[in-house]
C-alpha cells in the first residue's frame, strides 16, 4: 500500500521528503552504533529479507490474500535504527526499480511505512517489555501488540498529511474513520504474522532478536568433567 504520485500536493511531498531525509540520516548514525562496520552487509541483507517477505502471500480466505509490511517486525528483529534504514532502502528500491510508490511520494512513503511503523512498533514493544515480566516468552506477544498498533498509527499519520496536502475534498472524519477502521483489520493480520514469526525465530536463535536482548538470561559456560557427568 504505497502512496503513488499526485496523492499529496507538491509542497507537502517536498516537505515530507525533507523530513524523511533527516530521519534516514539520523537512522544511519544510530545504525552505526547498533552494528558498527557490519552495517552495510547486515542492513543490506535484512533489507533484502524485508523485500522478500513482502512477496509472501498470506491467504485471508475467499480468494484474497495480504502481505506483511514488516516495519514492526524489522524493528523487533534488528533494532529501531537499522529497522528504519532497511525499510527505507526497500522503499527506495521499490520506487526506483519497480515503480511501486511514486518517486515524488518517496518521502511520504518513508515517513509512513519506514519511520512511523518502525518507531511506533518499537516504542510499544519496548514499553510492554519493560512492564511485563522479563521472560523470553513475553517478547513475541509484545512484538505482536507493537505490530498491531503500528499499522493504524501509520494510517493516522497519513490522515494528518492528507489534511495538510490532500488533493481531494473528502471530509476528514470520513477519511480518518475509513483509514483507521480498515488498517485496524490489517493491523490484526500484521500482529498475527509478527507474533508467529518472532516466536519462530526466538525458538531457534533468540540471540538474533534485538528486542529480546535484555531478557535472555546470561548463561555461564559449564564444563562438564567426567565426574560431573557420572
Amino acid at each position, binding site marked *: 500500500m504505497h502512496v503513488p504520485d499526485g496523492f499529496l500536493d507538491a509542497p507537502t511531498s517536498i516537505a515530507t521528503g525533507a523530513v524523511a531525509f533527516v530521519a*534516514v540520516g539520523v537512522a544511519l548514525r544510530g545504525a552505526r552504533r547498533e552494528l558498527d562496520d557490519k552495517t552495510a552487509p547486515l542492513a*543490506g541483507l535484512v533489507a533484502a*529479507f524485508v523485500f522478500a*517477505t513482502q512477496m509472501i502471500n498470506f491467504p485471508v480466505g475467499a480468494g484474497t490474500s495480504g502481505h506483511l509490511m514488516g516495519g514492526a517486525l524489522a524493528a523487533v528483529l534488528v533494532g529501531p535504527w537499522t529497522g528504519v534504514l532497511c525499510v527505507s532502502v526497500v522503499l527506495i528500491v521499490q520506487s526506483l526499480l519497480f515503480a511501486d510508490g511514486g518517486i515524488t511520494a518517496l518521502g511520504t512513503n518513508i515517513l509512513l511505512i519506514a519511520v512511523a511503523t518502525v518507531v511506533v512498533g518499537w516504542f510499544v514493544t519496548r514499553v510492554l517489555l519493560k512492564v511485563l515480566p522479563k521472560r523470553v516468552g513475553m517478547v513475541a506477544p509484545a512484538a505482536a501488540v507493537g505490530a498491531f498498533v503500528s499499522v493504524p498509527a501509520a494510517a493516522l499519520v497519513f490522515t494528518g498529511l492528507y489534511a495538510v496536502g490532500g488533493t481531494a475534498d473528502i471530509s476528514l472524519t470520513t477519511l480518518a474513520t475509513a483509514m483507521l477502521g480498515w488498517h485496524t483489520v490489517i493491523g490484526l493480520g500484521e500482529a498475527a504474522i509478527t507474533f508467529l*514469526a518472532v516466536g519462530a525465530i526466538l525458538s531457534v536463535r533468540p540471540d*538474533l532478536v534485538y528486542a529480546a536482548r535484555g531478557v535472555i538470561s546470561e548463561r555461564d559456560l559449564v564444563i562438564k568433567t567426567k565426574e560431573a557427568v557420572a
Partner: protein
Amino acid sequence: MPAHLKVLALVGFMLVVVATPREWFAAYAFFLAVLVTVGAVARVRPGWVLKRMVVEVPFVVFAVLMPFIAQGPRVDVLGLSLSESGLLSAWGLLAKGTLGVIAGLMLAATTTPQELVRGLERLRMPEQLVQIMAFMVRYLEVVTDEMRRMAVARASRGFVARNPLHWPVLARSVGALFIRSFERGERVHLAMVSRGYTGRMPR
C-alpha cells in the same frame, strides 16, 4: 544516458506533473506523449509496462470510490449521484498516479540495479546508504531464491496455504528466511573483513 541524469529527470518530471493543476487536461496529454516518446526511443515494450502497472490497482479502487464519498455539489451520471469535485479528484489521482507509474517503469526498464546504485552515488546519496542499497540489490536474488526454494519444499510436501490457519507454517518460513539472511550477512561481513574491509568500499 547515465543513471543519475535519469533519476534527476524522473524526479523533475514528476514534480512538474504533481504540481500541474488537474483542470489542465491538455497538459496531461502532453505528459503522456512525452512518456510515450521516451518509451519509443528507448524501445521499451508496451506489454512489459502494462504487466507491471498492476502495482497501481489498489489506488485505482480508491480513485473509483472517490466520486461516491467526496463532498460538494453532485451531478447525475448514468443515474448515479456523484460528487463533482470527487470526479475531478478521481481524475487527478488516476492521471498523476498512472503517469508516475509509467515514468518510474521507464527508468526501471532502461537501468540495471547496478547502474542505479552508481547513479545514486553520483547524486551524493550518503555513502553508507549507497552501500546498504548495493548489498540489498546484490543479494535480492539470493534471498528471493531461498524463499522460492522454501515454497517448493513446502509444496512438495503437499502444503497449500488456503486460510489463516496455515499462517503459522508461512510465518515459520519467514522466521527461517530471516535467520538465513542474517547469518548470510554475518558470513559476508566476515569474508569482507578477512579481505581487508574497514567500513568503506574500495573504488
